[in-house]
């Protein structure tokens, strides 16, 4: 019944032969599901909660694809299952897309009731926290793939949440390292009106102090979403004179919604580059990123989703792959067990960044290199050379152990 590879086994000692045959049988049975006594593969159910994007109110030059994030999760489940066929695990991704007004906590509870032990949460900080608190004590692990808020890694950290998305502190530290490396030290910080913009700006001020940069000017943006004004007459006088009379090396925009950041480049009074949330940015993924095997992930994603991979796709991909990697290495599937394993020293996630990624035990943030990119090309990778740390250079990005406000319980 079982094809006997010639020669190799026959030379073995009888007991070894039986042992090997046993291993072979169980292995083959995973590969041939029709086998009569085939043990069922172990199921690992992963839930993915996302909220339907409201249509943009004004002109959107580069609309966010409807399947953003989801496509990354789908690819990762396929990757996990390719490995799972050899290890006897079967992964599934249950997608829950919330409509306007639909309760995120109820959706999370329903996914758990249907057997999901892992929830990938693509929601803002407040909703993530409600889910984390509602599921406290349950045998479920959450992955934050979206919210960059530093408080989630600080005072508002939760022991059932792992962060795949980089924090504001990591994003701004990465950028600040690059600016320090370039000796572009005097920043003109331009801060948008939204809450996230203020948080990003605060993180940028902190990063500037950390890496010896100077905030040469710090002004709020008060001219509205000019970057979305399709037929804007290019003579908005206030915006054009806004940058006059400031002595700085580079403008840093804090505009998470993309309302004005792209309006600033080439409209500054002096010839100055622009960075921050637009222009030169720190991010987890970019279409021109192809080293460390990233080219393979890019083409695999493009074939599956028929579009380019976005940072959110990559962050969801990492979350689902983290589950797969933990299951394969730890050989356990219980979420509680896996949580312990993932926050320990034995966990390492390869994710096309040249080094293995791991979670910081003090706040469960994924430590990861970040890409410094302009819209059409990759420029650098942080941590920049020369920024050293006693543990790993990756810990020069974001909140380090001695400064964390997180108390995991």
């Amino acid at each position: 019944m079982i094809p006997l590879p010639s020669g190799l086994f026959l030379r073995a000692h009888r007991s070894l032969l039986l042992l090997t045959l046993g291993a072979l049988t169980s292995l083959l049975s995973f590969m041939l599901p029709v086998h009569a006594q085939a043990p069922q593969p172990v199921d690992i159910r992963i839930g993915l909660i996302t909220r339907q994007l409201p249509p943009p109110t004004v002109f959107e030059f580069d609309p966010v694809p409807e399947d953003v994030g989801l496509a990354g999760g789908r690819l990762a489940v396929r990757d996990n299952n390719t490995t799972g066929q050899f290890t006897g695990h079967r992964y599934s991704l249950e997608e829950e897309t919330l409509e306007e007004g639909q309760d995120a906590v109820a959706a999370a509870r329903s996914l758990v009731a249907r057997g999901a032990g892992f929830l990938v949460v693509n929601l803002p900080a407040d909703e993530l926290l409600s889910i984390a608190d509602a599921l406290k004590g349950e045998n479920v692990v959450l992955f934050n793939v979206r919210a960059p808020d530093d408080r989630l890694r600080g005072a508002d950290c939760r022991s059932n949440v792992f962060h795949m998305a980089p924090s504001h502190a990591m994003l701004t530290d990465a950028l600040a390292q690059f600016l320090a490396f370039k000796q572009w030290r005097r920043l003109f910080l331009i801060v948008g009106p939204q809450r996230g913009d203020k948080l990003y700006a605060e993180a940028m001020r902190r990063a500037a102090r950390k890496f010896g940069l100077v905030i040469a000017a710090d002004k709020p943006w008060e001219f509205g979403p000019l970057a979305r004004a399709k037929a804007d007459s290019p003579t908005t006088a206030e915006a054009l004179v806004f940058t006059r009379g400031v002595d700085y090396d580079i403008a840093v925009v804090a505009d998470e919604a993309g309302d004005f950041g792209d309006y600033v480049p080439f409209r500054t009074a002096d010839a100055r580059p622009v960075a921050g949330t637009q222009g030169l940015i720190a991010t987890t993924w970019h279409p021109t990123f192809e080293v460390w095997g990233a080219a393979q992930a890019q083409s695999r994603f493009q074939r599956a989703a028929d579009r380019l991979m976005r940072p959110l796709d990559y962050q969801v991909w990492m979350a689902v792959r983290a589950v797969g990697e933990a299951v394969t290495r730890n050989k356990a599937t219980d979420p509680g067990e896996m949580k312990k394993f993932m926050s320990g020293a034995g966990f390492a996630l390869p994710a096309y960044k040249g080094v293995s990624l791991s979670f910081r035990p003090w706040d469960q943030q994924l430590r990861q290199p970040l890409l410094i990119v302009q819209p059409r090309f990759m420029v650098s990778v942080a941590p920049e050379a020369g920024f050293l740390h006693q543990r790993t250079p990756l810990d020069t990005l974001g909140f380090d152990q001695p400064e964390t406000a997180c108390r995991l319980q």
Partner: protein
Amino acid sequence: MAWNRVGRRMALALAGTVWLAVSGEAGAYPIYVSNEKDNTISVVDSDKLTVVATWKVGRRPRGITLSTDGKWLYVCASDDNRVDVVDTTTGMVVRSLRSGPDPELFVLHPKGNPLYIANENDNMVTVLDVEKNLVLTEVPVGVEPEGMGISPDGTILVNTSETTNMAHFIDTATYKIVANVLVDARPRIAEFSADGKVLWVSSEVGGTVSVIDPASRQITRKIEFKIPGMVPEAIQPVGVRLTKDGKKAFVALGPANRVAVVNAETFEVEKYLLVGQRVWQLAFTPDEKLLISTNGVSNDVSIIDVEAERVVKSVRVGAMPWGVVAGPN
């Protein structure tokens, strides 16, 4: 990177030292280097240690190997989804073979046929009859298959999958996977010892080399590398070559810009040889007097004297050298 600048300077200084010992003694062998970014093969003469010819091939040439008689050079043209066959006497592509999508690395059966090809984008190993240009079968393996090793008797093929992190043992008679060995992250190369008793698998991101007993399919030893003053993340083992006498192993360490010399009997790392930047693949000349390393970032190959364990020269080749193989004539 400040360190790299220093390393580069040292490598250049080494390259400048006069090289006497080997030239003249050994017969001249052609060394073929695939240049991933400019779609060429550089031919280096092992005697003169200079580039004597540059040949055009398909796009993104990576894996490279020779027919047993040295007449045909097989080149994975990854972006053209084919394997080019180059006539080594003329340097012309004479045929293109059906490799399946995105071929990256391959290994030839010890008898010269078939060719086993890792299709990186397709989670597949393609088995190709090189004479008939006929795909015999496709074997589904883990995510991002790359490394390909074959036992000296040709019965067991080992493929490594970079994202599944396994060495898959494939029976070449039945094309069935008979074992999967979980190794450290991003396994790149599988290399059997000449007697077939030991299998070495390098893990680029894990930073280790797993030594596997092919009979029991168990990891018997993990080799780690430590270079003073270098962060562990920079040590990324890729290429592995073993001398036929089973005494020495050479491991290319990627961005550490070094080739480790390992005692293949005790598995102790004995020495680190400074080479060019981002060293990936290695190949011996047929007499095993020289070892050549491809240095992708510095666009050169380092020539290593195997006996003296010393880098004797750097030779500038094309853009982003990837694979290397040396011919018998």
